[in-house]
């Protein structure tokens, strides 16, 4: 919203020494956020009114004229191509240094002395479009220059002064006044300014309306909840024309284009008081024997209205409309209808100033995608008491501007107003505690009263209580509790004046977040030890992804209103988006090793509570770890991912077992699939993507993937107890053993036996697996390095030999292993 500095000064006597910048800063610190300050005159720097003294022909160009122009301080020569230029004419002269827009297009250009076809030209005689004034001075012909002969000013007068462009516009961030219905007009902002600078603030005085009786105007409100107040009055003898310059100037300053006197008055009152108004052309409103019935009612489903912006709107029953006896004439609080619009032929008008239900207005404007200055205000819960003030001010302005006009009806007023008025009772000590300092009772009272609150102080000194009455313009929703009152005092006292303090807390260590601890351990292991890169994918997945993996969309939660229909489903697994990521990167990177830690959504499993009291539960949302790996030429990426998992477990002190399992999942390579177990708990899966699925994703090589549940790990982690094993004083002995077995024999089973068969064996490490040359088909060669050690003695060759023999025998019996020498 734009605030005119001059307009504010109408209500508050601000010292001349105060700059608009200082005022803007004060507003930002106490009331609203100021986004920018614009000096109107800046755009017209180095521009003056000039008088054309003499016109000569240009020797080298027929279309150009050489003008001697009096610009006050001197007479300068300017070459001009204007079609209407004549001697004695007052024109706008842009002097050297002024910034203009050539032919009304493109960037602003700074003027420099030039020669035009050989003739010197010092400055420029401007067309309206070249200085951004086309709105104010429409052109009737392309080559026309702006004729300002009507202005009663001397040559050399700065253009900004001549046109009254000497205002400063303060741009307020609308978001910062969403909760303040009283600040949507100059009067409301002025109240804050007056309070801030301790200035007197006038009440809003308007003359009573002298009612007429030639016409009857009746108003009815169908639903009391739709409108707390509707006021209207009819005026005849209207002559439509431009409004006076002072009104036009103010409207332009705040960014509203002047239209005609009546429309300008409604806009002026809105910007003044914050109360939107509307004017209907009486002749277009259904009347019977000079009787007009105005209804505030709900639209009928399918009812139509062409609004002022010339668009036909189809209405529904949730929308409040203004109607006459037979048709809708306005979309209440949002926009008027085109049929009853004020035109140059209008002679009689009906003014409306009303209050409408803010929620309904917002809903209507959202549904129709139609926002207006009016709807933006109504949806903030305006003070219904302002309606009558606005109506009176509008009538007063009509009388001023249009002497032939007169009120011909009584003032119609309907509605039941209910606004919170307090009192709010608040102890002085409460204010002191909340602020963290003591502000005198006198100062508290002064601040509150300057903002329009009524304050009564009761009780003894040091135990005072403030009884506070809330003004109507703050009571519609803004001020409800004691804390709101503290805010009023604190912000006007000045947050900068509050001395900061640090609270005193007990020295207690914060509780550790186990899940976060595990997440960090995982990240360190994967990123710092294993060379994986962390990613963050969206929580939403696409139907195409689900289809590629043959996953059922029904099992997924779905967004009601996705951004675009491309990702409507909530992920149950990190896999789908991760595969897309691997695919994208596989074209530019030979090796892709990535992981993500993120939440998934499982609708059928119970999660956190929906509320503290009820029994309803949200879906389960566990934090998962997904790891993906693909490398050009690596035919078994499974091992890389499985190994990464083992490291993750080892770092946490939880052994993660890879447990071969059967799967029916179509996207999984059935020969390369395993469950991930932690103790007896199934915590995840590791597998390779089925090569067919990988191909469908557009990936040439193999992709391995694992996903484990970190929440489940965090629960196991609580029981982890890492202990130290004393070192043996006796030397270890290493022996290798190699043998050939069926390819189907599992390392896990062999390893289990090797480590359990004799207490002298402290470790068995697989160091080679070989298939192919010299090994029969269906067989593989395995080689382990066994470490023998005792805590009691140095081992002798003989006893180790015996154990080796025992092992050979056992491997042969159990796995039909053939020992290789």
């Amino acid at each position: 919203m734009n605030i005119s500095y001059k307009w504010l000064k109408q209500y508050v006597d601000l010292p001349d020494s105060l700059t608009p910048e200082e005022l803007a800063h004060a507003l930002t610190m106490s009331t609203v956020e100021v986004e920018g300050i614009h000096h109107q005159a800046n755009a017209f720097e180095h521009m003056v009114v000039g008088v054309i003294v003499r016109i000569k022909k240009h020797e080298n160009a027929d279309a150009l004229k050489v003008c001697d122009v009096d610009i006050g301080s001197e007479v300068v020569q300017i070459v001009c191509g204007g079609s209407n230029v004549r001697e004695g004419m007052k024109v706008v002269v842009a002097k050297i240094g002024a910034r203009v827009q050539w032919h009304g297009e493109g960037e602003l250009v700074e003027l420099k002395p030039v020669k035009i076809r050989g003739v010197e030209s010092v400055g420029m005689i401007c067309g309206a479009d070249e200085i951004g004034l086309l709105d104010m001075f429409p052109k009737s012909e392309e080559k026309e220059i702006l004729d300002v002969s009507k202005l009663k000013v001397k040559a050399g007068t700065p253009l900004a002064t001549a046109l009254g462009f000497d205002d400063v516009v303060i741009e307020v961030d609308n978001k910062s006044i969403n909760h303040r219905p009283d600040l949507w007009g100059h009067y409301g902002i002025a109240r804050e300014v007056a309070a801030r600078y301790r200035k007197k603030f006038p009440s809003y005085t308007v003359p009573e309306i002298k009612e007429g009786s030639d016409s009857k105007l009746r108003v009815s409100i169908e639903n009391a909840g739709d409108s707390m107040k509707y006021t209207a009055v009819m005026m005849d003898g209207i002559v439509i024309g431009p409004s006076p310059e002072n009104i036009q100037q103010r409207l332009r300053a705040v960014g509203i284009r002047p239209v005609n006197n009546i429309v300008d008055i409604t806009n002026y009152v809105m910007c003044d008081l914050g109360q939107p108004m509307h004017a209907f052309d009486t002749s277009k409103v259904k009347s019977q024997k000079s009787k007009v019935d105005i209804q505030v009612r709900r639209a009928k489903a399918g009812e139509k209205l062409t609004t002022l912006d010339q668009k036909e709107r189809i209405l529904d029953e949730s929308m409040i409309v203004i109607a006459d006896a037979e048709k809708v004439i306005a979309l209440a609080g949002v926009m008027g209808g085109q049929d009853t619009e004020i035109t140059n032929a209008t002679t009689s008008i009906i003014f409306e100033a009303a209050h409408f239900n803010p929620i309904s207005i917002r809903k209507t404007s959202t549904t129709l995608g139609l926002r207006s200055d009016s709807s933006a205000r109504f949806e903030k819960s305006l003070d219904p008491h302002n309606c009558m003030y606005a109506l009176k001010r509008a009538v007063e302005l009509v009388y001023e501007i249009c002497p032939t006009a007169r009120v011909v009806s009584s003032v119609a007023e309907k509605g039941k107003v209910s606004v919170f008025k307090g009192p709010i009772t608040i102890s002085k000590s409460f204010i002191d505690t909340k602020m963290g300092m003591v502000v005198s009772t006198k100062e508290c009272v002064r601040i509150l009263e300057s903002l329009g609150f009524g304050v009564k102080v009761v009780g003894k000194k040091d135990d005072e209580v403030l009884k506070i009455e809330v003004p109507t313009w703050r009571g519609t929703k803004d001020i409800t509790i004691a804390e709101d009152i503290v805010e009023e005092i604190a912000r006007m006292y000045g947050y900068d004046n509050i001395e900061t303090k640090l609270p005193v807390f007990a020295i207690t260590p914060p509780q550790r977040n186990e899940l976060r601890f595990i997440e960090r351990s995982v990240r360190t292991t994967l990123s710092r030890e294993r060379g994986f890169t962390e990613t963050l994918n969206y929580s939403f997945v696409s139907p195409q992804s689900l289809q590629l993996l043959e996953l059922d969309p029904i099992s997924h939660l779905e967004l009601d209103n996705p951004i675009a229909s491309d990702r409507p489903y909530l992920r149950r697994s990190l896999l789908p988006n991760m595969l897309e990521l691997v695919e994208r990167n596989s074209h530019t990177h030979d090796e892709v090793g990535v992981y993500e830690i993120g939440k998934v959504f499982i609708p059928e499993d119970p999660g956190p509570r929906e509320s503290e009291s009820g029994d309803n539960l949200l879906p389960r949302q566990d934090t998962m770890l997904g790891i993906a790996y693909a490398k050009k030429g690596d035919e078994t990426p499974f091992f890389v991912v499985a190994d990464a998992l083992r490291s993750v477990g080892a770092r946490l002190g939880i052994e993660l077992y890879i447990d071969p399992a059967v799967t029916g999942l179509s996207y999984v390579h059935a020969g390369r699939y395993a469950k991930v177990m932690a103790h007896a708990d199934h915590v995840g899966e590791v597998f390779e993507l089925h090569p067919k699925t990988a191909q469908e994703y557009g990936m040439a090589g193999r992709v391995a993937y694992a996903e484990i549940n970190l929440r489940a790990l965090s629960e196991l982690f609580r029981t982890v107890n890492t202990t130290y094993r004393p070192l043996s004083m006796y030397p270890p002995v290493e022996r290798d053993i190699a043998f050939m077995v069926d390819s189907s024999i599992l390392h896990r089973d062999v390893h289990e036996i090797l480590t359990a068969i004799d207490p002298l064996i402290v470790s068995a490490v697989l160091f080679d697996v070989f298939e192919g040359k010299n090994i029969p088909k269906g067989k593989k060669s395995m080689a382990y390095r066994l470490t023998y050690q005792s805590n009691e003695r140095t081992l002798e060759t003989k006893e180790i030999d015996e154990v080796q023999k025992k092992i050979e025998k056992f491997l042969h019996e159990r796995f039909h292993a053939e020992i290789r020498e």
Partner: protein
Amino acid sequence: MIEKLEQIKKEAREASNNSSSLEELELVRERFFSRKSGEFTVLAKGMKDLSDNERKKIGQKMNEVKSEIEAFFDHKKNEFEMKVWEAIAVTEAIDVTQPKLPTPGHGHQHPMTIVHTELEELFTSMGFTVLDGPELESEYYNFDALNIPGTHPARDSQDTFFIKNHPEWVMRTHTSPVQVRAMQKYGAPLRAVVSGRCFRNESTDASHEHTFYQMEGIVIDRHISIAHLIGVMKELLRGVLRKDVEVRLRPGYFPFVEPGFELDMKCLVCGGAGCGACKHSGWIETLPCGLVHPKVIEAGGLDPVEWTGFAFGLGSMRLCMQKYGIEDIRHLHGGNLSFLEQF
């Protein structure tokens, strides 16, 4: 015999001095000491023909000469070996700037993770507990409990993702629901921070994302004041930025705090003079904050007369972008390894 010995000694010295390599020196050694035909060996074999008395005398001399000759050889050998050690500076020189091949890959953490970890560690050091909450929330926790009534614009579908067939569920629009969950679970006094993923139904461009991250904190205790809030925020910023910063507090509106503030920090780029980074205002909007609304404390199951508190939010995604100079927010979820590998 003695003369002969002297002669051999002389020749051995000359021969060793004249040898030009370790190999040549070895040949010289062979010439004098080879088992069968070494000149010294042959002479030594002649010892057996001498008388006892002479043998004793000559033998002594012979041993002396032998050690002397060996000393020549050792000296010369040592000389050669020293040369070899000196030569490896050239013969064994490597390109010390070359990486190990094949180069082992390095892993990377996501920049958001780095920022969150730093912040969480800071808060932990200040006695805050780090909490998490559900990303799919109930309307109750996301809105009602935070004093955002059903008619509030924030509850429009243009701002919030709703879940099909579950009108009472939303994708959380902020981390604030955890404020109430935390009070319900841990009671008071409470010091906690929450970081995590939030969602807003808005189109994505270079500076907007429908999926973003927040970090927020809550303190619940007795007699918490505006003065405390400003004090803690200053300390917090000092911890984050590792320097003293000037801050200012101005009014800001959020339904779950009363009063609510926007806390600005004096621009670190221009020192408050005004520059592009602070939109020429001299201040950077940094932390929305406020005293916890009594209705929110009540929703947390606490008595708002006894318990008070403050809450603050940190746009950790914007912080991350500032920290690394990331110009386009879409990089953060873009999953492009060329981007991620820079962190």
